[in-house]
């Protein structure tokens, strides 16, 4: 795996303490690894688990680092790469598709000036596609940091949403 040089930097004491708290809230139980990683990535502004954090967690639990990376790359909700402050996940599944998620995607791309898979220059927004997250009764929907925003069927609503995130 390629590493960004800065990712190899050690974690600050503050972050270590925060990760310790996450571990504690999961009873330092290695079977809770998925929950631990979900909480850990929320500690980072760009919602991912940097390598240093992954190794730190591995050192605290009776699991090899390879297990942590296996989980990070297996589960769609987890990321080992920097995302954005607001990763905007657009649902690409069928109920959203038949409620015009294509237009929603285009509106977001236009308003943010990026394509799906890209991050805005300031690291604030990223556009991603995801599969159904169970908000099909509010299609078309996006999810941002775990929160669902539905019925985004006009440019005005999308604009309002983006502004509310500022």
């Amino acid at each position: 795996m390629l590493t960004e040089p800065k990712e190899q930097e050690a974690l600050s004491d503050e972050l270590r303490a925060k990760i310790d708290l996450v571990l504690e809230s999961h009873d330092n139980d290695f079977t809770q690894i998925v929950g631990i990683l979900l909480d850990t990535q929320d500690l980072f502004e760009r919602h991912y688990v940097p390598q240093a954090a992954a190794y730190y967690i591995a050192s605290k639990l009776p699991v090899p680092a390879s297990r942590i990376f296996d989980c990070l790359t297996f589960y769609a909700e987890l990321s080992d790469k920097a995302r954005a402050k607001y990763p905007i996940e657009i649902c690409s599944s069928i109920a959203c598709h038949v409620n015009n998620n294509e237009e929603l995607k285009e509106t977001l791309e236009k308003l943010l000036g990026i394509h799906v898979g890209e991050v805005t220059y300031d690291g604030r927004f990223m556009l991603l596609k995801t599969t159904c997250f169970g908000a099909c009764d509010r299609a078309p929907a996006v999810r941002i940091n775990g929160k669902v925003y539905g019925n985004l069927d006009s440019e005005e609503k999308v604009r309002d949403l983006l502004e509310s995130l500022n």
Partner: protein
Amino acid sequence: MGTELHFISANFGKYDTSSIGSYMSIGGFEALRKAVTMDGEDIAKIVAAAKIKGRGGAGYDMGRKWTQARAVKGEHKVVICNADEGEPCTFKDRELIKQDPFNLIEALIIAGWVVGATDAYIYMRAEYACLRQLLLNAIRQAKSYGFLGKNILGKGFDFDIHLYSGAGAYVCGEGTALIRSIEGKAGRPRMKPPFIKVSGLFARPTCVNNVESLSIVPHLLLDQEGVYMHAGTPDSIGTKMVSVAGNVRNPGVFEIPFGTTVRDIVYNLAGGVPEDRQIRLIQFGGASGYIADASILDVPYTYDDLEKAGVNVGTGALLVIDERTSVLDFLTITQDFFSDESCGQCTPCREGNRHMRMLIEKLRRGEADTSDIEKMKKITRIMPMSSLCGLGEGAQHAMIAAMRVFPEVFDVGGAANE
């Protein structure tokens, strides 16, 4: 008809979901009090008599499952509540957890009593993270009231509930994958045997039930007047939670007595199709479900009748798609879903999905010939036969049904297909 019957959802909106006291004021935990005076086998028999089938989609006889789980020898049995409803268009369990979390907790304790388990694990999809605190709070309060922990209700019954989170992997709805995920691993399914009921979570005997299946039980135990047993049809007793979405005016979750027609569900409950457009197709039970055209509207929603009409109850999802979306467009999105979600372990699923996607694309471009259609048919036969888990088995259900219901789409001898 076309009206709901609130049996499983009877508590919705009736109490403060953050307070056990509020739940108890509407009769909460009475079912558990009753259950612990009964023999577990008798409870399993009540469940069997109500013909409750697994409501996560597999449709396995729940009473039988409980009887089998009781019979398995072994220490530290566990019960798992599968709250990982990942089938697109399925969101009924979301409402059951959100609007009635304590009933689910009570149901799990009863399940533990019946099968003789020591622990329960709720595996909830990450998408429902907002419901996590609600459930944790319910578990905490149940513990402080002595409904969980040691010697519950003075019956020498020790039982605890643990909450685990998924992280966005559809395949984790599959039993063995779900178990691996709770064990702290990547959720890749494994080969069976050993079967879960003998050697499941942490190699212990394990009984997996869906949120809705479990949620019925407390209500059923207290159903003096036999409301549930009198609802529905002789074959499909009682009620079902359905989630309706797609091109309908009023998408949502409804509880219907079995036997309600599909038309009643789509038009009376879900408000029908906007601008009165025609229905192109309806998919039942999520992405791995079969599809039908509008001729299904007058079929009563029961296990038998739907099966005769070529579809399944599955998870209870109804996805309505109007005439603006073509069959091939629908199949493309469905195929993309499975290509995304296949874990890639076994070749038939990994490659089958990929190749099917390419063939659909070819068909869309009008470049497919009869040999391509033959290849598609072959894939629909091979994948269910040889895939490791249910994902690969179900991935081509929509395609199989489409070939039957819309043969003209695959008639490459004819003109353009869209």
